[in-house]
């Protein structure tokens, strides 16, 4: 499902060249529940952005859902993000002026193919399932952090993606709420078979996933 070959990402910061990711080769299969563990500045987020097609590798090849990404145009990449990838961010990244329901429905507005289900109904079902059905008409700033993250998960799921990428999903939450969010992700992986990759710096979070990938100074390491 995900195949990275000798992927590097360099950028220049002032006069210094920073190697955020260097020569990473990695394969993740469909249905996996994996974590990418690393300290701040280890390049783990950059790696996730490359996998999530938010950023482009400087060199190496990225194959996602059996497609070589290098050859795709920007709008094709956008469509892959829209249809196949759901993002969950540390800071939720909901749009404040839209209600929870509108946020969840936002990806469907950008769908380039006709969807074969009732999006409104699916959004409501997702919110119910995730436990915030009663918050559908609230604006993000009127609900708790845990509820916002749940809304973000519902948004990530609305298009029935094959892959969910979660960047420090529990980073802004207390331990108990964080655990609930991880329970939820685990459940989604078990029940729906969605591939989930969690990026984290917390060993405890990584330990809950079925596979741990360690990254240090932009390189994969065997053990942390």
């Amino acid at each position, binding site marked *: 499902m995900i195949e990275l070959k000798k992927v590097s990402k360099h950028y220049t910061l002032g006069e210094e060249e920073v190697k955020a990711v260097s020569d990473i080769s990695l394969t993740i299969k469909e249905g996996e529940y994996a974590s990418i563990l690393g300290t701040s500045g280890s390049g783990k987020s950059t790696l996730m952005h490359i996998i999530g097609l*938010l950023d482009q590798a400087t060199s190496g090849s990225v194959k996602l859902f059996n497609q070589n990404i290098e050859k795709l145009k920007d709008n094709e990449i956008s469509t892959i993000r829209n249809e196949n990838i759901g993002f969950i961010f540390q800071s939720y990244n909901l749009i404040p002026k839209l209600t929870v329901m509108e946020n969840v429905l936002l990806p469907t507005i950008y769908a380039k193919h006709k969807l074969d289900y009732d999006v409104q109904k699916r959004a409501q079902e997702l919110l119910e399932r995730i436990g915030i059905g009663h918050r559908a008409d609230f604006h993000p700033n009127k609900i708790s952090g845990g509820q916002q993250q749940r809304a973000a998960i519902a948004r990530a799921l609305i298009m029935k993606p094959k892959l969910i990428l979660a960047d420090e999903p529990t980073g802004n939450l207390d331990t108990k709420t964080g655990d609930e969010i991880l329970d939820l992700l685990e459940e989604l992986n078990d029940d729906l078979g969605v591939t989930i990759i969690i990026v984290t710096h917390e060993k405890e979070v990584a330990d809950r996933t079925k596979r741990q990938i360690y990254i240090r100074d932009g390189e994969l390491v065997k053990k942390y």
Partner: protein
Amino acid sequence: MKYAISVIKNAIGEFERNRVRTFLTSLGIMIGVFSVVMLLALGIGLKNYLEQQFEDIGSNVLFVFPGQGFGGGGSFGQAFSSFANSIQFDERDYKNLKQLSTADYVVPGYITTKQIESKYEKTAGSIQGVNDEYDELFNFEILAGEFLSRSDISSRSKVGVIAETLADELFDEPDDAVGQTVEVDSNLRIKIIGLVKDIGDPEQDNSIMIPYTTTFLTINPDKTFLSIYIGVSDSSLVTQTKKDAEDILLRRYDDDQFSVIEPSEILDTVTQIFSIVNGVLIAIGSVSLIVGGIGIMNIMYASVTDRTREIGIRRSIGATKSDIMIQFMAESTILSLLGGLVGLLLAGIIVLIVRPFFPLEINLSTVLVSLGISSVIGIFFGSFPARSAANLTPIEAIRYE
């Protein structure tokens, strides 16, 4: 469809969140469209008004003017210089033109503004020196009394026919005018023998028509005419009559000293002048539209910066560059169009209020042009900020604080 609704809803949501900013931004376009529409209304209104004036006279009338004013070709400069050193018609020209076999009537034209005094009032009005056929030129409706007769002309009678507006000013009731006497410049007493209905021409409606022979006594001692009108009953004979009239006048004058003109030629010239004037007015109005457009561009750039993170989020969930572009262009276009619409409405209200006093007119093409221009401004000036929004890289946008 769902997409379009969401884009428009989104734009309106933005406006509601920033009402003051939205109002101030669209104000530029509002003022621009308002001034362009008002200027167009003025241009079209004046043009229609003048056309109406010529229609009142009818198309089968030839105008004989000194100089090479209208339709003679050449520049305004030439026209005016030839006007300045040209001849003045006199009774001999009038009598010569009267010989035209195809002419239905020939009327000499003389007009001057004088102090006119009735036993009640004193006012400035026009005195026209004409003949008994003058009423055929305008098809006057005689409200009371009668028009000048042939014998009035030949006997230099001190009688006159007054138009409604002037009669209303000089007498209690216009109908009272017939039979009364007015004094012109304190040295000519004219007995009113007829009252004619207004025709909508301010100069005509505010005048007394007296025999041209009578004007020779005191008012017009040079015994000249400003113009001569030739009526032709059969429209197929207009061109021939024109040529014959020119031949007659050529016996006395050079061909650049006078002109014989059909109303259509004057109309063509008037139309030409107004299209130039309108063009200039629109160009002036367009400056404010461009300033308004720059205002929109400025605000949209600020809005892109404000919403960088939102753009990043939208991109991350699958919005393409063109989706972002459309979102921002929709905002600038709707903003500009709304401004244009309000400007148009304001201009429409002003036109409705002023219309009874002044010829102003808004036609369909003015409406379409003003709305079209406001959309184009929104699209054009919105496209630069929209492009910069679309070209943000998703990851940089989403990290933007």
